């Protein structure tokens, strides 16, 4: 059996988690007895694949060894931004579970969860510029924090197109770039920039991460149909029930019979109508077709590798490509 991704890349998940904890532990304005501290700590301890910080650290390997440790700052900030966005997304999607545990707003309340997400980004930005190269790191961190606007536009897009079965493939890809792929591209390039890589290298790494990010989102779309609630740690079929138009749905709408069933759905449709539509999509060929598009984007990322011929860390990018190919 193949080793997990972090082991293949010789990255310690324990060290990443320690760094994430350190971000709150080193905030002298945050009381350890507070609900916020306990909530963020629990969120970190709940684990996860830590794909984003791993990608930032791999990006950092394209810089200089003297500055490699600065990629950790980018990795910490980006993972906090990701965790904060999940907290707010769970409220927006009215999702009671996250990785099998109660989501933060369900465990506390909506106001607490909103402020906790805000705190996490502000604190991570503050932390990323502590100790050394204060101005330079703050500038880099603020540039990353500015990406929130793009993530939000992706979310507005999703919100405005709930149960909008006229969404095209191009519109879906544009939304996916903003909502998911942009942050993954930024992980690769920010790690590289922090570690002092050339701008051209950082830009190519962005393209690489963005392509993998689209493949990742399509894979996530598929999980909604292929996994049980227990496996997902959240309700299965939640995307469709929330009216989020994902890639399998766009493909399903091309089939006359599936289209007829899907067009019956709206926010007040019955549980039986949703279940019937989900089962019909599962039995159709659209899941395989979606897998093929995810594979195409992973192969697009692979084609970018030729720009890094001869670089000792190209093998790490190959590991990422293999991981995403296997995942889809």
């Amino acid at each position, binding site marked *: 059996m193949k080793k997990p991704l972090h082991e293949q890349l010789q990255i310690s998940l324990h060290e990443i988690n320690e760094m994430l904890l350190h971000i709150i532990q080193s905030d002298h*304005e945050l009381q350890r007895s507070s609900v916020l501290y306990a909530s963020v700590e629990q969120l970190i301890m709940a684990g996860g694949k830590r794909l984003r910080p791993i990608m930032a650290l791999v990006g950092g390997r394209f810089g200089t060894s003297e500055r490699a440790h600065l990629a950790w700052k980018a990795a910490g900030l980006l993972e906090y931004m990701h965790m904060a966005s999940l907290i*707010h997304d769970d409220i*927006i999607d009215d999702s009671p579970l996250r990785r099998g545990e109660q989501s933060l707003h369900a465990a506390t309340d909506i106001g607490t969860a909103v402020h906790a997400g*805000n705190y996490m980004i502000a604190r991570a930005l*503050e932390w990323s510029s502590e100790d050394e190269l204060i101005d330079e790191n703050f500038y880099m961190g603020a540039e990353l924090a*500015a990406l929130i*606007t793009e993530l939000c536009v992706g979310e*507005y897009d999703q*919100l405005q197109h709930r149960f909008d079965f006229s969404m095209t493939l191009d519109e879906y890809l544009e939304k996916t770039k903003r909502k998911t792929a942009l942050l993954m591209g930024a992980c690769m390039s920010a790690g590289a920039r922090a570690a002092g890589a050339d701008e051209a290298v950082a830009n190519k790494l962005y393209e690489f991460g963005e392509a993998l990010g689209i493949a990742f989102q399509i894979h996530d779309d598929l999980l909604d149909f292929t996994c049980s609630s227990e496996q997902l740690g959240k309700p299965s079929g939640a995307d469709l029930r929330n009216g989020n138009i994902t890639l399998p749905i766009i493909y399903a709408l091309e089939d006359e019979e599936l289209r007829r069933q899907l067009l019956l759905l709206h926010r007040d449709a019955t549980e039986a109508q949703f279940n019937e539509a989900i089962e019909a999509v599962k039995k159709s060929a659209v899941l395989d077709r979606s897998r093929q598009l995810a594979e195409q984007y992973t192969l697009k990322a692979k084609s970018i590798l030729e720009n890094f011929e001869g670089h000792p860390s190209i093998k790490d990018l190959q590991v990422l490509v293999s991981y995403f190919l296997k995942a889809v």
Partner: protein
Amino acid sequence: MDKKLLLDTLDLVNELIHKQTNIELHADDRSLQELAEMIGSYCMTRSRKMTVLSCCMLISVGIRKHNHLLPDDKESLARSILDGDYLIGLIYRVAISRKEQKLLQKINPIYKRMQLQSLEGRGNEGFMTELKREIKDYLDQQSA
């Protein structure tokens, strides 16, 4: 009072806001008018004054969006959360693109502390006063 500074900045911010968000800011906030008056009194380019005031506007409205959530109205709740997130994110974008990152180093800690205060159940009444004090400090340093 330089009312034109406030109105021009408002136009600038509304132009910067992505159309898909449907957010439109208004100049009906007394504390923003006071900030505009203070910023307007400094000797610096009009463009810089507008950048500083833009960031104050965005943080003020962004915070208000997150402080007025309606949990029972899902649509409005989602919009308020996104609006607040977007407006706060836009502060970083505006300050970085206009080379005022040092201003962010002043604003970010106040914003963080305000989140902590909200989580402790304390009100944010002092926020605009603290923001005004930090902005004054920043402008004093910049124009020294």
